[in-house]
């Protein structure tokens, strides 16, 4: 019995060690699905590794979950797109510093035949108002993520309370929401990066973009040494600094999908 127990524990630790053996140094980065799904990390992480010999392990989850992971001390670094939430995080002492890294924008996607006439809208407010008036099916993430909150601000801005059968709150991430919208032939607001990389478009197409209010800022956070002393703060700082460095910013700018740049570096 004891023999088998030690064998099992050895097997378990080997697995754990194997995970560590992938790179000598690594940090865990909690980020969002837009950065992962678009392929940004696949493009820039190898460059970071080449420069610093540090592997970045990305946990791509919804913004809310990313904050929770960082709050619990399960990640060394945080890169999300919810500026208000990020500032609160610093205020509450979980992070010591927040920096602008890059931005992109949100876009309004919808069925090709565009029953709500979103194509013709001049502003985001108009686009959303049109959808509400036509009571055209709209797929909302409904998960209190950064994107979701941004979407709700658009409705507010349009003077609309989204309610009724046409407004479907899915409680899902961006990808699954797009899948559902494609199947429902519904309108949906997405970040551009996820949309450009998304393959299951069916009837959906990009109908509205360009309004300044659809601006989507990404920020990197340096986590607090005090709250979680065990984290790899030195390595995380290297990552944070690299993101806003010339090399990092260039790597972000160089990333393209189908000839389109998806993220625009704007570190100060």
């Amino acid at each position, binding site marked *: 019995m004891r023999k088998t127990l030690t064998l099992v524990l050895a*097997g378990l630790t080997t697995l*754990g060690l194997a995970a560590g053996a*992938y790179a000598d140094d690594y940090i*865990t980065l909690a980020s969002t699905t837009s950065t992962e*799904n678009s392929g940004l990390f696949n493009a820039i992480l190898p460059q970071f590794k080449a420069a610093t010999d540090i592997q970045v392990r990305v946990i791509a989850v919804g913004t809310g979950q990313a904050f929770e992971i960082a709050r619990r*001390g*399960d990640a060394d670094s945080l890169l999300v797109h919810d500026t208000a939430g990020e500032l609160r995080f610093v205020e509450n002492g979980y992070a010591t510093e927040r920096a602008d890294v890059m931005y992109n924008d949100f876009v309004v996607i919808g069925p090709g035949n565009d029953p709500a006439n979103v194509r013709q809208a001049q502003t985001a407010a108009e686009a959303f108002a049109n959808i509400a008036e036509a009571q055209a099916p709209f797929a909302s993430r409904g998960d209190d993520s950064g994107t979701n909150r941004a979407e709700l601000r658009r409705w507010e801005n349009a003077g609309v309370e989204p309610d009724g059968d046409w407004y479907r709150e899915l409680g899902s991430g961006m990808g*699954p929401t797009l899948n559902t919208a494609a199947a429902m032939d519904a309108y949906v607001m997405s970040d551009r990066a996820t949309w450009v*990389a998304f393959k299951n*478009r069916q009837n959906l197409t990009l109908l509205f973009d360009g309004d300044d209010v659809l601006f989507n800022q990404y920020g990197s956070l340096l986590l607090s040494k005090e709250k979680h002393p065990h984290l790899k703060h030195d390595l995380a700082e290297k990552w944070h600094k690299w993101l806003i460095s010339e090399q990092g910013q260039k790597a972000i700018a160089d990333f393209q999908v189908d000839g389109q740049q998806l993220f625009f570096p704007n570190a100060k």
Partner: protein
Amino acid sequence: MENNAFYVALSLLMNLDAALFQIVALSLQVSLLAVLAAALLGFPLGAAVALWRFPGRGGVIVALNALMGLPPVVAGLTVYLLLSRAGPLGEWGLLFTPTAMVIAQFVLVLPILAALSRQKVEELLGEYREQFISLGMSRSRMMPTLLWDARFTLLTVLLAGFGRASAEVGAVMMVGGNIDGVTRVMTTAIVLETSKGDLPLALGLGIVLLTLVMLINAGAYVVSELAKRRVG
């Protein structure tokens, strides 16, 4: 799209896609290790519940049976809260590692192995009890004998546990984080590709996973049939 998916699955396998192999290898490692560990604890546990009368025994049996249906995401969440730095076992630093995934699947599979082995051992005990007592066997002495005698059924139970482990995604997603190259397994890869809208690839991966599990089951069937024929 369905034709597409089969083609994708086939080309994935033919091209000996290195990333795919890594994912498949990790999936097998995690699930097999979890099932073996769960068997080491679960089979004696099930046998013990079958052999001994104790207060609350009925409750234990009901609980084991009910936990067979433990939702994977709940198991994942529970293990996550345990292993998180903010949790009781945070110091072990196991979150987002394959070890955490093994633990989560262990939790998921243990009730299945314990509940089903209990049922089989109890059945055998009905047949053997008088003879065992006549031979002077104590209840603890009966345990290894009964478990070995039940080996063919227990193999099927093991396969059921393995099926459950290799099919689930909720637990490994939560505690593993689906980290590329570190904790990405077949099921989480399928979820990822689905969320990217690449449904043919997702389905193709699904077909690869199914084929794998089917091969394992076929192998186990052949082995057990050969053995059964000898033992009767």
